[in-house]
C-alpha cells in the first residue's frame, strides 16, 4: 500500500526514512502539535514550498535544465486565484476558475518558452527564462490597474476557510476547529496529492526517459526519443505544478503581490532548497524546503543574538547581522554544489 503510494520509490535509507516520516507526521498534525498562528503559518508555507521545490526538481534534478522562470509560473498561479477572487467574489467557483485559468496560462507560456528556447542549447534556456521572468515581474508591477502593482492584491476567500467560521463548537486538544484549520488541511492535502503525483511522474517510464535525457541527451536522441519533446513536456508539467502551488499560497495568505510570488529572491530560495535537499530526488525537496523555511523563520533571530554578542569586535557584527543571512546562504550554496552535489538525501543514502 505505502509502496504503491510512493510509486515504488523507497527512501532506501533508514535515517532518511525516519526524517521523512517525522516531517510528514509533523506537518499532518501541525495545528495540534505546534499551536499558534506563526507556527501554523510556517507549516503551511513548508507544505507549499515542498510542492514548489519538488516541481522545480523535476526540471533541475531529473531533466537537467536550469530555469529561472519558476517563480513566474508560481506567480501566475497565485495571480490567477487572486484576480478571480477579486473579480468574482469569495466563492469556491472563483477559486476553481482561478486555479484552472492560472494553470492553463502557466502551461501555455511554458510550452512557448520551451519550444523556442530548448531547441538550441540547454544553457540558452537558463538565460532566456531569466530574461522572460524579469520582464514578467516588471510587467506585473507596471500594469497596476489590473494587478495592483507593487502593492499587490488583497481579497477575501470563502468564509468557510476563515477563522470566523466555526466547524465544531468544541476544542480538540485545546485547538479551535475553525475555518483556518480547514484552510490548513486544504493546503496540506493538496500538497500531499501533488507531491505523490510528482513522485508517480518521476518513477514512470516518462520519468526514466527524462533521466536518460539528463545523463546523455545525444544518446537518448539516438535511441529514438525526441529529446526536445521530453524537455518541453517536463517544463510544462513543472510549470503547471508550480502554478498550483502558487494558487495554494494565494488562498493561504489571502494576499498576492510581486514580493511574495515573483521576486528573484524566491527563485534563489528555491534553488537553495533543491541543492541543499538533494537534486534528482523528490525527497530532497521535502527536506530542503523544511530545513530552509525553519531556518528562515527561526535562524534569523539567532543571528541577531550573534550580532549583539560580537558587538565589540570590528567587521564581524556586520557579517553576522540578520540582514546578511542571504550571504551565508550563498556561501552554503557554493559549498554544497562543490562538496555535496547530492544534498542531504544523497548523503544519508550513501551511508545507509
Amino acid at each position, binding site marked *: 500500500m505505502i509502496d504503491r503510494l510512493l510509486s515504488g520509490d523507497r527512501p532506501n535509507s533508514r535515517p532518511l526514512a525516519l526524517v521523512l516520516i517525522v516531517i510528514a507526521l509533523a506537518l499532518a498534525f501541525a495545528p495540534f502539535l505546534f499551536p499558534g498562528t506563526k507556527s501554523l503559518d510556517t507549516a503551511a508555507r513548508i507544505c507549499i514550498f515542498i510542492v514548489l521545490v519538488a516541481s522545480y526538481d523535476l526540471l533541475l534534478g531529473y531533466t*537537467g535544465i*536550469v530555469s529561472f522562470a519558476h517563480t513566474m509560473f508560481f506567480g501566475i498561479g497565485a495571480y490567477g486565484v487572486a484576480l478571480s477572487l477579486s473579480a468574482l467574489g469569495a466563492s469556491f467557483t472563483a477559486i476553481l476558475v482561478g486555479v484552472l485559468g492560472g494553470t492553463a496560462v502557466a502551461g501555455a507560456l511554458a510550452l512557448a518558452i520551451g519550444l523556442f528556447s530548448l531547441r*538550441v542549447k540547454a544553457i540558452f534556456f537558463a538565460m532566456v527564462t531569466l*530574461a522572460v521572468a524579469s*520582464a514578467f515581474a516588471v510587467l506585473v508591477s*507596471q500594469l497596476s490597474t489590473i494587478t495592483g502593482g507593487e502593492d499587490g492584491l488583497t481579497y477575501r476567500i470563502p468564509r468557510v476557510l476563515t477563522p470566523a467560521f466555526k466547524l465544531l463548537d468544541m476544542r480538540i486538544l485545546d485547538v479551535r476547529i475553525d475555518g483556518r484549520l480547514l484552510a490548513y488541511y486544504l493546503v496540506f492535502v493538496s500538497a500531499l496529492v501533488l507531491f505523490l503525483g510528482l513522485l508517480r511522474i518521476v518513477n514512470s517510464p516518462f520519468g526514466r526517459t527524462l533521466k536518460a535525457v539528463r545523463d546523455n541527451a545525444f544518446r537518448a536522441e539516438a535511441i529514438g526519443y525526441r529529446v526536445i519533446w521530453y524537455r518541453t513536456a517536463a517544463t510544462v508539467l513543472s510549470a503547471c505544478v508550480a502554478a498550483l502551488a502558487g494558487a495554494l499560497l494565494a488562498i493561504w495568505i489571502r494576499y498576492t503581490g510581486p514580493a511574495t510570488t515573483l521576486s*528573484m529572491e524566491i527563485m534563489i530560495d528555491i534553488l537553495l532548497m533543491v541543492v541543499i535537499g538533494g537534486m534528482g530526488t523528490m525527497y530532497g525537496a521535502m527536506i530542503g524546503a523544511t530545513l530552509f523555511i525553519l531556518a528562515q523563520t527561526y535562524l534569523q533571530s539567532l543571528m541577531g543574538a550573534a550580532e549583539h554578542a560580537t558587538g565589540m569586535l570590528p567587521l564581524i557584527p556586520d557579517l553576522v547581522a540578520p540582514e546578511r543571512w*542571504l550571504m551565508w546562504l550563498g556561501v552554503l550554496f557554493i559549498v554544497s554544489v562543490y562538496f555535496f552535489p547530492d544534498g542531504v538525501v544523497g548523503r544519508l543514502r550513501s551511508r545507509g
Partner: protein
Amino acid sequence: MSETAIRPKLVAASAGDRLRKAAPLLLAPVMALAGLIAIADPATWLTLTVAGLAMGLMIFIMASGLTVVFGLMDVINFGHGAFVSVGAFVGFTVLAWLAGWTENPAVIMNLAAVFLAILASMAVTGVLGLAFERVIVAPVYGHHLKQILVTMGGLIVAQQLIHVVWGPDAIHVARPQSLRGSVIVFDAVIEKYRLFAVAIGLVLFLGMRHVLRSTKVGLLVRAGVENGEMVEALGYRIRRLFLVVFMVGSALAGLGGVMWGLYNETITAHMGSDLMVLVFIVVIIGGLGSIEGCFIGALLVGLLSNYMTFLAPKVALVSTIALMVGVLMWRPEGLYPVVKAK
C-alpha cells in the same frame, strides 16, 4: 591533363547570399529608420537615438567579456553582474575622494577624475575576476549546470559583501561638472554624458576589434574560440589565455558599471544583476561567443528600448524580449553563431 581541369572554380556569391551575410549589419540602421518613422519628430528621434547608442554601447562593454569567456571556454558566468556592481561602487568611492577635481570647472580635471575612477574600478574588478575564476569557476569546468548554480551563488555573496562594505541603500553619484547638462544639436537636446559614453564605447569597440583581428593574442583568442584543443596541441596554454580573457572581461564589466552608475546617477548592489537581463538578451541575440554579434545586439537593444520608452513606456522591457524572440525565430543560434570545430 589539361590545365583547366585543376583550376579552382571561383563562383561569385550571388546577390541574395551576400545580402544574407550582411543582413545583421543592416539591422541597426533599419531599427533607427523604423524609429524615425514611428516617432515622426526628428529632434526627439535624435535625442532618443543618441541615448539608445549610449545605452547600447555601455551594455556592449559589459556583455563583451561574458560572450568571449563563453566562446573560449564554454563557461557561462551568471555572476558577471557582480563585477558591474563592484565596479560602480569602486568608481563612486574614487570619484568621492576626488570631489575637488570633479567640482572643478576645468574639463581636464573632470576627465582625469573619471579616468582614474575607471582605472581603479577596472583594477579592482580585474583582480576580483581572477579570484572568482580561481575559486568559484575553476572547479566546475565543463559542467554547465554546476557553473550556473555556483556563479549564481557567487553573485549573491558578492552583492551581500557590497551591502557590508557600502551599506544597503542606493547611493547617489554626481557627474563631474563638465559632463552635466546637455548640448543642443539640430533642435535636439542631447546630454553631454551620453555623447561621452558613445565616444568611450566606440573607442573600446574599435580597440577590441583591433586586438582581436591584428594581434597575436587576438589571433589565439579567436583560434581558441573556434577550436581550443588545436590551439593547445600547438603548444599554447589555453588555460592561461582564458584566465587573462576572464580578467579582462571582468574589468570591462567594472568599466561598464562605472559608466552606467554615472549615466543613471544612482548605484545599488543589485544594479549588476538587473542589468544582466539586458546583457543576456544581447548575448543571445548576437550569438553566444561572437563579439560582432554582441555589438549589433547591444545597439539594437539600446535603440529599441529607448524608442519604446518614449512610445509605450510600460512595455519597454517586454519589447526587447520580443526582439530576442524575433531574432531567434530568424536565426536560432543568434545573429553570428560561433562555429565550433568539435
